[in-house]
């Protein structure tokens, strides 16, 4: 029969593998940007939200947040929105659709290694999130004269934890959605309710009932961590406490994702 299964030549192989991931990443990006609905829903929405809310905020200030301008609150808020939309909502919906249409199974049955495919999907999500962040910072800076993060390092660290955790939660969520038709409505509904509870649209007072509820979920903590990196006023720009809670949620998500992940359609 054909050549026997070879033992891979290890050193050469690593480079080949990385090229494979890079190549898959390129096609992941292509698939994303060529889908107008997906691209608009994810990238344009966050910018439109920022522009709308930023414009309506005028010069009002938030007294309980160190008296910052409201628009200065909205930029970190929509930066976190952008990260979560890309990593949680968009990733989750696309995974469910790809699973149910057999795309994941087909990739699984190709010689592309599983880890390579997953790496490409995660990296692709991170790229989309980064594009969002840059776009939002530019709109905030140029459109509303908002200052950029005080502490670049704390900002990057918050983004890293956020991207990783919400990606894990997005994959976990995809394992809970039974079919393609439910993917969009279920995921978006969960996301928007959590956004509201977490005070993303309008800052909520700490100590209020809403603030109490929102402390249970990761969105509020992610938002606070990003906000802290932007507006360090006396406090530490690195909100360890919040980032740890986000990371804990991310870890829980990763456990669910690894346990329940499925390649084949469920047809349920």
């Amino acid at each position, binding site marked *: 029969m054909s050549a026997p299964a*070879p033992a891979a030549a290890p050193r050469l192989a690593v480079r080949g593998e990385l090229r494979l991931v890079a190549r898959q990443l390129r096609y992941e990006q*292509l*698939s994303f940007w060529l*889908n107008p609905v997906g691209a608009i829903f994810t990238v344009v929405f966050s910018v439109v939200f920022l522009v709308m809310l930023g414009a309506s905020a005028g010069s009002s200030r938030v007294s309980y947040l160190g008296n910052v301008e409201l628009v200065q609150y909205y930029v970190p808020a929509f930066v976190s929105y952008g990260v979560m939309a890309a990593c949680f909502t968009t990733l989750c919906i696309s995974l469910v659709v790809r699973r149910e249409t057999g795309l994941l*199974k*087909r990739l699984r*049955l*190709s010689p592309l*290694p599983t880890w390579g495919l997953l790496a490409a999907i995660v990296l692709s999500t991170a790229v989309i999130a980064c594009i969002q962040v840059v776009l939002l910072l530019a709109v905030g800076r140029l459109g509303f004269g908002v200052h950029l993060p005080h502490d670049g390092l704390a900002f990057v660290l918050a983004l890293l934890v956020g991207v990783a955790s919400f990606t894990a939660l997005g994959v976990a969520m995809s394992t809970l959605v039974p079919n393609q038709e439910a993917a969009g409505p279920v995921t978006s509904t969960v996301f928007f309710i959590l956004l509201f509870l977490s005070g993303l649209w309008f800052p909520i007072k700490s100590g209020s009932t809403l603030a109490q509820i929102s402390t249970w979920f990761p969105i509020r903590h992610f938002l606070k961590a990003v906000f802290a990196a932007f507006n360090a006023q006396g406090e530490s720009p690195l909100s360890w406490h919040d980032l740890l809670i986000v990371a804990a949620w991310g870890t829980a998500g990763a456990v669910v994702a690894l346990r329940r992940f499925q390649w*084949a359609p469920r047809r349920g």
Partner: protein
Amino acid sequence: MSVVSVRGLRKSYGSLTAVDDVSFEVQRGEVFALLGPNGAGKTSTIEILEGFRGRDGGEVRVLGIDPGVRSTQRWLRSQLGVVLQELAVEPFLSVRQVLTRNAGYYPAPRPVEEVIELIGLAEKADAKVKTLSGGQQRRLDVGLGIVGAPALLFLDEPTTGLDPAGRRMSWELLQRLAGEGTTVILTTHYMDEAEALAQRVAIIARGRIVADGAPDTIGGRDRGAATIRFRLPSDAGAEELPEECFEADAQVRRDDGGAVEIQTDEEVRVLHALTGWAQERGVALAGLTVRRNTLEDVYLRLTGGDPERERAGAEAELVRSR
């Protein structure tokens, strides 16, 4: 030499036995069909051969290796082509983009342009996948199955959901591939599909292979009974038919409308006597037909088209996908 060898294969999902002691061999260059109703164990068997699913028992060799061994699965996947039941193609990429991407997964792919030509999508090469018709998408799907120049191609119900024209086109494509010497294992629940494409058919029901052979001899099709049908006018009684009609294991049935059905292994002798009798008596044998058992008859007899079983099969399908 066998490309695939399966011996005593078993797979259960909980208390449900999906594959129960299945054995078969597929030779190089052969087109082999697993024919059976939904939930009979076809897809489970194929998934085990692909290394996608584990097995509970039995010996399996695909291209000389055990598909259940993880360390060689990636090599195995580089030698396999797969076409799934679902039309699994990214909707927003073009035909050429999708084929180019997948070609890159394989060590020695077929040239993309050659595949485009082969699947008859040259004019649609730059069209987005979502603008293709169902039949065109299916052909692209087959194209993705062969772009890696596989030593073995799996087709899981390749024409389910296609209109007759789309099926016909897919068949032509698959016949061309078979002509090139690609070894193919396909599953189907269409008898005509197995007959049109496969050199060898195994009929599978309730997880067991109940018959295995060439489509025109399977289940004793070439020997077994033929059915002679005609109508007698109301003034002629069936008991007046010549004695050859009642000989040996021939069976005569007549309903109220005068329709007569004779089952016999010796249709030539019976027909000869029958037509002679009709001429002599001046009786018209209206609507006279002789029909040899079709693959469908064999299939229905062997799979026992029993609704309870069908339901159990549907449940097996459900459990399997969990």
